[in-house]
């Protein structure tokens, strides 16, 4: 193991730490848009998961594989169709949903090949985003939304409310959800979707296929127990 880089949990990106908290040990996990494989490495070393990744940026893929992590070059929009049904316990999409071409189809594929999906995304409903658009009449530029409109890869931004709606339409059960600020702090407002949608800079959802329980509509209250 001398030549293998080990990432320390404390250095884990905030949303990745929140995602890792939603994943049971010794499960099969596919991380879509896994970057250099930080999360799959964490899941393998600390939870004994069979974690694999797909990444579109070839330099990141090379870095991940050179660290001994099972990562393949691929695209969320076109490669998920090649996985069989129920191949994984969890399919993770961290901060990528807003950048794919067909978010709805990607979610469908995720919950076809996995029993559960963990999705994190930056919340476009955050008050600062709203305020900037209202005050300046221009596309917001914040710590989270930090690229000009003509060069951002984030072509499908959504709010926490929007995401709840999509889950309802698609019949996905929201098993857990939480909102956090960029530092990952989950203040009291996390329990209330309306407040979470205003103050949460990012959200993490744990979804299950086939609504055995109807997803909670926005405003009904009651966040999850967190991670």
């Amino acid at each position, binding site marked *: *193991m001398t030549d293998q880089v080990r990432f320390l949990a404390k250095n884990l990106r905030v949303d990745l730490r929140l995602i890792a908290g939603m994943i049971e040990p010794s499960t099969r996990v596919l991380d879509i848009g896994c970057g250099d494989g930080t999360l799959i490495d964490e899941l393998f070393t600390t939870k004994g998961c069979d974690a694999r990744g797909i990444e579109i940026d070839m330099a990141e893929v090379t870095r991940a594989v*050179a660290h001994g992590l099972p990562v393949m070059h691929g695209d969320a929009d076109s490669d998920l169709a090649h996985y*069989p049904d129920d191949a994984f316990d969890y399919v993770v999409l961290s901060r990528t949903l807003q950048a794919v071409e067909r978010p709805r189809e990607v979610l469908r594929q995720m919950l076809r090949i996995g029993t559960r999906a963990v999705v994190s995304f930056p919340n476009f409903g955050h008050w600062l985003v709203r305020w900037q658009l209202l005050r300046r009449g221009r596309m917001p530029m914040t710590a989270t939304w930090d690229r000009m409109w003509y060069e951002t890869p984030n072509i499908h931004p959504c709010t926490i409310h929007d995401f709840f709606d999509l889950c309802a339409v698609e019949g996905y059960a929201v098993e857990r959800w939480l909102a956090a600020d960029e530092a990952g702090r989950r203040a009291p407002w996390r329990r209330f979707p309306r407040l979470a949608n205003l103050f949460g800079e990012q959200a993490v959802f744990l979804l299950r296929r086939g609504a055995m329980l109807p997803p909670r509509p926005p405003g009904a209250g009651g966040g999850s127990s967190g991670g």
Partner: protein
Amino acid sequence: MDQTAPLADLPHQHVLFADGMALECGASLPELAVAYRTYGALNAERSNAVLVCHALTGDQYVAEPHPITGKDGWWDAVVGPGRPIDTGRYFVICANVLGGCMGSTGPRSLRDAAGTRWGTDFPPVTIRDMVRAQKRLIDHLGISRLFAVIGGSMGGMQALQWAADYPDAVFAALPIATAAYHSAQNIAFHEVGRQAIFADPDWQGGRYWQTERIPARGLAVARMCAHITYLSEEALARKFGRRLQDAPKSAGEAISLFGDMFEVESYLHHQGSTFVRRFDANSYLTITRAMDYFDLAADHGGDLATAFRGTTTRFLLVSFTSDWLFPTAESRAIARALNRAGANVSFVEIPSDKGHDAFLLDEPDFHRTLAGFLSGCAARAGLAAHD
């Protein structure tokens, strides 16, 4: 070129299976020789063996000087102490393929006690036959599971065949710059090479071993044609451009129509003439045919995923951006079939302007990828870390 001496019968380390081997075509070889080389040491658990499969014109001399040319091993940059396939950690095995001409049974081998060589009567062999011959060697060495099988080009075809035929005997498979079937374009290039050999009067219907002459010109043309397919347009432009070999010295000297004009021509001539000193024409015919026959999906009802269903082997597929002989799309197709089979697959395309040959050359990203993948597999296989 015409005076090139026939291949010498050099002694090669080998194992002889006196019971021979039945081939896919239905014919049987009365005896089977598998010539091989090993590097590093097999550990007590016999769990650190890495089988390297060579390409069309390669051989078992992976990491040591070649007995005929004296040149460094063909994968010296990859196999050795501290190299990506670290011989301080792994026990590396490489066997000359069935049908080859460096000591394994092939068209040059004697077919009977009277000393007759097989020549063109040598039965057609397949990639699967090659792999079965290697399996005999691995069994002979007392290894029940290979830590890894790795190969580029035709070697990658063998790695795929190994993983499909002996999934329990392969912990990790690394098919590099390869495809699950030989494309029509690749078959076409091979056919040009074969026709060049047939057209050489010194080929003598394949019985050239009865005289002292070999079809050097035909084999050299085959090699020259094939060599172009191993390079990229960028690599040729970078290495040679349109540079002339010998500019006319005086105004009165006519530009020669048939001499070496461009540097790229002289390079190809050199490639051809050195190749014929170390390779047998009938082996070239046999092995190119084996590659052409290769279609792993067709052997599994047309679906490549079926070949790997339920496999626990970990895969690393690598392709190179400028490789137009085995383009990235072919590796991606394999990766997707492996996904359909639920296999654990890593897949990287390495940026390189060196064409298909990139897998043999100094490509740091490729070497880092290989080393890291093997290390990761070693951790998961419980292979002790080296100190």
